[in-house]
């Protein structure tokens, strides 16, 4: 087992804590109560002792950096785990670039932090505008085929994808638009795909549930619940075999955590230390079935313990929290420490698919989640805490709407595929 070392909230104020120094190096064995590192708050300098004996692993916050209370800065591992958990002897040719989460909290980088948050606001807004625009068109009977929408879940897609490089892969689901947009997929191509056009990202063969943009690492999204979990594990393992430091992400819902592919995929990924990140978007409902009727535990992240991998619960309505968890998981994966299960508590505002009015949900529940809306929270934070101008954010929203409408116009103006295209690309000839 690996046990996370977190930064204690020493001042009980929630204010940042600065790491002054580490008393122990990575790979060194410590006894219980031995000093691990020294921290400084605005009130005092304190030595943090080891809460148990073990081997120090994976320091993610160097001396001099500031962290929010609760941040995991390293791990204490059992001796055997530490040995088995060392990265492969032949490290990747390419040095991974990892931004430490602590950086986001340091006052020196306040500017970049705000800009990152503005970027997150912008991408979440684009997703929301896109989904809402399509929903209105659907109500008018103007959207062909099926529709599975992700309003409310934007922070998960954006928080995770912001922690990825373009050459990292994502495997999405039947509800793919948020993930695809967050990974940088072509809005025109995915829209044309939904409209079944020749210019669609997969030429009309996929439809709304099978969106892709291989140029940005968005693999074909998968409409069999849970099926992308072992596939992502396979890509991740292949990256390691190829000596690359890329990671693979599987997105899936709470419902998928009950299918066999989840168990097989997470277990195999864990025993092989695949550089994969498993992101469970727990939106409380598997189609119409509430999680309490399908799962006898509160947190799906608890299941990670059964596979010997870290399981993290994160507020899926808080893009910064998702991002921090994803960055940590990505860092672990790139360093050869294997996969992580991240459970994001979130909510989808619309029904499971088109024509589902969501009559199985209570209005109070819906309202409570709306009040935690990830986009509005980000807006408030940007304005109230960072002094962003609301006019700037309004401009972002206006441009998002224009981009959405332009994408739909592109789709509508695009030609249909040739009928006989139905017969192509079954095999590599």
């Amino acid at each position, binding site marked *: 087992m690996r046990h996370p070392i977190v930064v204690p909230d020493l001042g009980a104020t929630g204010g940042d804590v600065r790491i002054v120094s580490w008393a122990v190096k990575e790979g060194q064995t410590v006894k219980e109560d031995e000093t691990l590192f020294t921290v400084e708050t605005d009130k005092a300098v304190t030595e943090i002792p080891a809460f148990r004996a073990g081997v120090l692993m994976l320091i993610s916050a160097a001396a001099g950096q500031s962290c929010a209370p609760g941040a995991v800065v390293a791990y204490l591992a059992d001796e055997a785990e530490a040995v088995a958990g060392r990265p492969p002897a032949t490290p990747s040719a390419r040095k991974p670039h990892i931004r430490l989460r602590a950086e986001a909290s340091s006052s020196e980088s306040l500017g970049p932090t705000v800009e990152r948050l503005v970027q997150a606001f912008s991408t979440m807004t684009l997703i929301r505008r896109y989904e809402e625009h399509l929903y209105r068109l659907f109500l008018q009977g103007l959207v062909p085929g099926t529709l599975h929408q992700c309003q409310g879940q934007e922070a998960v897609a954006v928080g995770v994808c912001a922690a990825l490089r373009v050459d990292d892969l994502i495997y999405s689901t039947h509800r793919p638009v948020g993930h695809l947009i967050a990974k940088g997929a072509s809005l025109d191509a995915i829209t044309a795909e939904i409209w079944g056009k020749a210019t669609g990202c997969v030429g009309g063969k996929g439809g709304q549930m099978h969106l892709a943009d291989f140029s940005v690492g968005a693999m074909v999204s998968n409409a069999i619940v849970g099926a992308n979990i072992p596939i992502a594990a396979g890509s991740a393992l292949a990256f390691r075999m190829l000596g690359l430091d890329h990671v693979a992400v599987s997105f899936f819902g709470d419902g998928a955590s009950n299918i066999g592919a989840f168990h097989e995929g997470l277990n195999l990924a864990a025993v092989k230390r695949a550089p994969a990140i498993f992101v469970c978007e727990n939106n409380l409902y598997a189609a119409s079935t509430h999680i309490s009727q399908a799962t006898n535990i509160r947190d799906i992240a608890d299941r990670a313990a059964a596979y010997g991998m870290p399981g993290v619960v994160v507020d899926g309505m808080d893009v910064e929290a998702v991002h921090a968890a994803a960055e940590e998981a990505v860092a672990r994966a790139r360093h050869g420490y294997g996969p992580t299960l991240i459970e994001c508590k979130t909510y989808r505002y619309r029904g499971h698919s088109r024509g589902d009015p969501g009559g199985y949900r209570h209005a109070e529940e819906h309202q409570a989640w709306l009040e935690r809306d990830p986009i509005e929270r980000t807006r408030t934070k940007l304005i109230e805490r960072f002094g962003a101008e609301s006019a700037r954010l309004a401009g972002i929203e206006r441009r998002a709407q224009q981009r959405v409408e332009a994408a739909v116009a592109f789709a509508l103006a695009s030609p249909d595929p040739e009928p006989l295209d139905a017969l192509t690309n079954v095999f*590599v000839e």
Partner: protein
Amino acid sequence: MNANIEQLTTRPMGMAEALRDAMRIALKSDPRVFLIGEDIGVKGGFGGGFTVTLGLSDEFDPERVVDTPISEGAIVGVAIGAAMVGMRPVAEMQYGDFVFCAMDQVVNQAAKMRYMSNGQVRVPMVLRLPVGASQRGAQHGQSTEALFMHTPGLKVVCPSTPRDAKGMLLAAIRDDNPVVFLEHKLLYGGKGSRKESAPISFGVDVPEGDYTVPLGPAAIRRPGSDVTLLANMLMVHRAHSAAERLATSGIDVEVIDMRSLTPLDMETVVVSLAKTGRLLVVEEDNLTCGWGAEVLARVAESHHHLLKRPMRRVAGPDTPLPCAAVLERAYVPDVEKIAAAVRGLLE
């Protein structure tokens, strides 16, 4: 590689050894190739259920011969995910029957990824399935080729000789499509305490070194002029024995080895049928919707004018596979049944 296949020296091998040889060559010649399956990557282990990978886990790194938990779905899923980013995995089901645990990955994922991506990804993987009745009962002995033949996007091949097994496995590994590769357990050849095996009448002289046998063309195992007899895997050898027996009565049977089912070599079948006018299909799988049914349908649609007699099939009955020797013998087509069906076509 194929150009000088006839110049390669040969050595008698069983099918297990031939397949092992193919995988060794593939692992050595291409760093993208890796094997994945249950009980295949244990140092000093027994090389999968049928010794096919015996010793490879000692010769190669554990990342090349990947041992897995009992997770058929994840074995295939991992192979797909790896193949899509450029690897060439060879996945093994310990028994072909276990592939049903992985059917979503095979049918919904591997077979469809190229199509669903509109040709933007390829899934160059091999899925090896040991099949065939061998007194293990209903869940360790069925033949499953027809199910995969029904699924667009999969190549389905089923060699009957060690020579083909090696060359076709190398071809399958180098193919850019997912290939379901069926191996009949009774053709693996005896190894150690394993006594079960069927006599292989031809194709045991296996070329040393690297060569491929293309996926697609059928092979005429015995030319003949009276009856066209199609068979695959173990049934090829039984059909061949029946043909040799019938030859003593002056009946001249052409035996064609349908070693590839997708693609299906109808041309070889039709050329033979033009000569004989009589068609018999022998398969170990259940009768209904088997590959023989597809062949008969295509002949009936487009080549019925060649037929002198109604076509016949000899196949397993539409029951699960029984275990006891006497029951299994009643189930699996044997030389007597095949010979009788040929005589029936000539009456």
